[in-house]
């Protein structure tokens, strides 16, 4: 167009980024994207290949190698072989490599950005201004983490080899999120990029070579889901990290159950975006552009559920529709495009299908009027209002540029709506009232909350979710623990501890002692109506305990869920109650020691030590209750990211069979200190130390329902517990080898698990049985981003 005409129309015109260099790079590889194993890029013969296409125009970009099991073996073997030396060279030496990777990412930033956009369809502005800078930032941050590891995390060591599977929505960024912390902490990795988007990973492989990274530290295997499955289930893997759909996450959880692997999952979401009536409405509207139309809405933490306070709903929706009408959709390589292409035709179909089906249940649709390109995978930015919580559209993750919304009346209702979901990844909260903002952020179930902002990411702040959004954190200090284990972690095998045999004799003159269950602050008869005798070493009946079943577990979980106010009580109060428990236990020291002695037949000295250690442990966690602080992260905004330690919620715990008192206290005390409520299944062979505690609980001001005790056969209730949707984390330290079962059954609601994997813990050894590791298991870190400035 001529200048004169443009002067009339004031059009932006085209501003295309050149694809030339990226295409040359692909051509240098003859259009074949190979594997990166043991520091060499290879395209082995005889492998199938996948087509990688540009979703914006369908153009074939390259063929991606489909790795086979032999390739996976070689990659894992290379990583295995490289790991000891990589860990052995120490943090500062590793830091230099990470620093080099960061520098090289910056050096090749434009090529990476262009490649990413060609492959994925995201606007070049986003890959250039957001993805790639965050990748570099991630390597810089973790170069620092490596540098400081020995000083700051002296008790931690690498896990070994990490098997990592990443999604297609942020190909290189997810790669960085996975690789940087892993190798910083001394692990080596085998990573599988997503089948749609493997190109930037191969460029990263070249960067690894350029950085001189030792062979085998980073290995990349490409291909479809089968490759991912082979990788995560491979016996040479110590840790699995997955980002992707909840469905695949659940499959992985089940597939690797009992393999003794560490696992972190970062899965789907349906994050709330809450606008209160005193918010800066224009800014909140603009925030939505970054929340749901960023990366075509293909973002796990996208603010996809809009909740607007009723009084401003009309004006807000009007402003939002007007803003949508300004969005520019089209060729992602154009620098002035807001919304690019959907990654693949299959994803486009999925979005279309969910929306069309969902609209049958109701909702008012507004579609961005911009003309879509005639070819390529495009979906218009869409707003659907008047969608009720009961609608599929409000419940199901769409993973596209589709925002659904409804209204709320009060802050409490906003929270109720926000939490009415299986997911729990992120939340945005818009209000000019600091009291309101800082009240709501802790109440929304999520791993990340953004006040008056959205989709803020930084390596210094952990990211991750709760519920079916997965578990574990990436980034920040919390993310480092996901790639390390304690140097004192137990290694000895745990032998099954069996109940002692005996013979029931007439009670006679003795007063019958049959311990009931302890549920909701009251002693309750077991639903089954059965009891189990407990015998002494001499075979004498000590007492009967109720035999809990699934209904008792149900009741106990209900009581625990009803007692969650415990988590909102002050840390000081929780400390006081833990001290009080210790004090009351101390008053009955001898009785408890004698009980241990009579049940287990140990030396008196051993029994006394166990009781004393238990009292000490209660005191330790009473001390921790008000000292396990969160953090204020230095994120690159004018503001602060507050990392708050929140209780996990309801924790189910199957206690150690050995050390019947100390084992239970070692688990219970940190959970209570951090504000969790608990369903406790005590030692199966020696349950009486636990039932004796009822009176201690009752005299220590512990609120009803905070601790619920169900004596039961572990194998009979383990699946009920692990499968219970209301339980947020399930711990297992029994000797019956139920770790695999627990892990597998936990996949139902993707609860966290913490199991002993058949290893024996010395409960008297405070390095193994006490400390921050326990506190981390008893908490969720929530990062609340609070920008400020007036």
């Amino acid at each position: 167009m001529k200048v004169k005409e443009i002067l009339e129309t004031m059009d932006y015109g085209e501003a295309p980024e050149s694809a030339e260099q990226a295409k040359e790079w692909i051509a240098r590889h003859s259009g074949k994207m190979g594997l990166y194993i043991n520091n060499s890029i290879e395209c082995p013969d005889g492998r199938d290949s996948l087509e990688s296409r540009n979703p914006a125009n369908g153009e074939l970009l390259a063929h991606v190698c489909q790795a086979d099991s032999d390739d996976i073996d070689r990659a894992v073997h290379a990583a295995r072989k490289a790991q000891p030396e990589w860990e052995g060279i120490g943090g500062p030496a590793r830091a230099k490599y990470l620093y080099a990777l960061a520098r090289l990412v910056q050096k090749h930033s434009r090529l990476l950005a262009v490649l990413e956009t060609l492959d994925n369809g995201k606007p070049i502005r986003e890959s250039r201004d957001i993805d790639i800078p965050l990748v570099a930032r991630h390597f810089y941050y973790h170069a620092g983490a490596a540098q400081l590891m020995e000083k700051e995390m002296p008790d931690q060591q690498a896990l070994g080899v990490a098997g990592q599977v990443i999604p297609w929505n942020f190909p290189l960024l997810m790669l960085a999120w996975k690789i940087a912390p892993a190798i910083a902490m001394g692990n080596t990795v085998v990573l599988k990029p997503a089948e749609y988007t493997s190109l930037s990973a191969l460029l990263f492989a070249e960067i690894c070579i350029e950085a001189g990274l030792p062979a085998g530290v980073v290995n990349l295997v490409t291909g479809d889901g089968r490759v991912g499955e082979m990788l995560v289930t491979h016996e040479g893997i110590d840790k699995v990290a997955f980002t992707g759909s909840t469905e695949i996450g659940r499959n992985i959880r089940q597939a690797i159950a009992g393999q003794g692997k560490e696992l972190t999952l970062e899965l789907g979401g349906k994050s709330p975006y809450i606008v209160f009536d005193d918010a800066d409405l224009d800014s909140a509207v603009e925030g939505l552009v970054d929340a749901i139309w960023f990366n075509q809405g293909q973002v796990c933490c996208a603010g996809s559920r809009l909740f607007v306070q009723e009084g401003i709903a009309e004006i807000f929706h009007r402003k939002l529709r007007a803003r949508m009408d300004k969005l520019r959709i089209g060729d992602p390589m154009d620098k002035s495009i807001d919304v690019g292409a959907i990654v693949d035709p299959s994803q486009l179909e999925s979005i279309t299908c969910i929306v069309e089906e969902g609209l049958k249940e109701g909702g008012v649709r507004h579609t961005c009027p911009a003309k879509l390109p005639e070819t390529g995978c495009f979906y218009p930015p869409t707003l659907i209002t008047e969608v009720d919580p009961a609608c599929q559209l409000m419940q199901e993750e769409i993973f596209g540029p589709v925002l659904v919304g409804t209204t709320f009346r009060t802050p409490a209702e906003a929270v109720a709506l926000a939490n009415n979901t299986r997911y729990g990844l992120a939340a945005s909260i818009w209000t000019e009232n600091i009291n309101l903002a800082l009240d709501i952020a802790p109440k929304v179930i999520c791993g990340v909350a953004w006040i008056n902002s959205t989709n803020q990411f930084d390596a210094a702040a952990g990211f991750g979710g709760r519920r079916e959004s997965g578990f574990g954190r990436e980034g920040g200090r919390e993310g480092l623990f996901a790639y390390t284990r304690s140097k004192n972690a137990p290694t000895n095998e745990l032998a099954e501890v069996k109940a002692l045999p005996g013979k029931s004799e007439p009670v006679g003159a003795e007063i019958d002692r049959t311990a009931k269950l302890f549920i909701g602050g009251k002693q309750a008869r077991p639903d089954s109506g059965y009891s189990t005798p407990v015998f002494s070493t001499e075979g004498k009946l000590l007492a009967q305990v109720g035999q809990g079943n699934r209904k008792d577990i149900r009741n106990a979980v209900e009581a625990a869920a009803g007692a969650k106010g415990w988590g909102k009580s002050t840390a000081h109060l929780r400390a006081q109650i833990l001290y009080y428990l210790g004090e009351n236990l101390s008053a009955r020291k001898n009785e408890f020691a004698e009980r241990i002695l009579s049940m287990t037949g140990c030396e008196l000295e051993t029994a006394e030590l166990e009781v004393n250690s238990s009292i000490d442990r209660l005191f330790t966690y009473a001390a921790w209750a008000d000292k396990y602080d969160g953090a204020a992260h230095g994120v690159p905004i004018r503001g602060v990211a507050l990392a708050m330690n929140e209780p996990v919620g309801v924790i189910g715990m199957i206690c150690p069979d050995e050390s019947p008192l100390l084992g239970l206290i070692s688990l219970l005390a940190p959970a209570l200190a951090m504000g969790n409520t608990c369903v406790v299944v005590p030692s199966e062979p020696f349950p009486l130390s636990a039932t004796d505690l009822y009176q201690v609980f009752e005299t220590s001001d512990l609120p009803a329902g905070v601790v619920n005790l169900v004596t039961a056969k572990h194998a009979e209730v383990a699946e009920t517990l692990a499968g219970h949707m209301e339980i947020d984390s399930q711990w297992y330290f029994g000797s019956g080898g139920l770790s695999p079962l627990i892990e597998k059954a936990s996949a139902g609601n993707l609860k966290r698990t913490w199991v002993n994997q058949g290893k024996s813990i010395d409960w008297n050894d405070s390095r193994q049985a006490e400390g921050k590791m326990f506190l981390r298991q008893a908490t969720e870190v929530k990062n609340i981003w609070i920008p400020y400035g007036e």
Partner: protein
Amino acid sequence: MSKSSPPNELFRNSGTELDLDWALSVQANTSAIERRCKTLPGRRSIKKANQAAWLLKAITCIDLTTLSGDDTEQRVRRLCQKAKYPVRRDLLEAMEIEPGTIHTGAICVYHEMVPAAVSALEGTNIPVAAVSTGFPAGLSPYALRLAEIGESVKAGAQEIDIVISRRHVLTQNWQALYDEMKAFRKACGDAHVKAILATGELGTLRNVARASMICMMAGADFIKTSTGKESVNATLPISLTMIRQIRDYYERTGYHVGYKPAGGISKAKDSLTYLSLIKEELGDRWLQPDLFRFGASSLLGDIERQLEHFVTGHYSANYRHAIG
């Protein structure tokens, strides 16, 4: 702007009652506003012929300004000549733009220079704007400030840039601000009134937003950021805050109020960012000199250099373009 397509005539903003419920409900979240402004230049890239056209558009929106103690009539005459012929003829021809169709939006001077400017611009449709009401501090006697407007209008100024009493904003005396603005507007008669908020002295974006709204309610034709004499002049966040109020006011009343960022905009690239901000937030109708102006003195020079680069493919130099 090309004479072939004059913008459609708008109804002048006649103001509304003072609606404090509305004005005080206005919020402005600084961090979020800054974030929008920071990402905007990356979201919109204007290249080649589009860039040249946009830069020409920017020229037509410039209030070419001299506000110096040493201004003389000859100096002002020179500036007016530049306003009439802001771009070298050969460059315009290369872009197939008819010479004479591009001129700046207005000339902006102190009262004493109004007659010189009016005479220099005779026969053109370039209006003369006068800064007024005790510019820049606005602390001279109220009666004199009102009278000053009348004098400038009498002298031929078609636009009056008034300064508000910042103290009314800082003490939240919205009624006083409304009354003052209303009186100024009345004193202007048919001349259009631009309300200079001196945003750099208002403390917060929320104050800027509320003062914008009050001035529009009192009948301002334009709201303008600064006198150019404050330490902080036009910025993107301040602009975004003000134009969002213009949008709300338009949506509620149907009146188009203009916007003038002033001071600190000296690069061609910045002018493109401002124009795209206006296009995105207010729409194309505001990309006309009757609703958008740059208060700038050195911006034109940089734009001329960029235009020469567009035409020739070579980077330009100052001396190749006439000074004003």
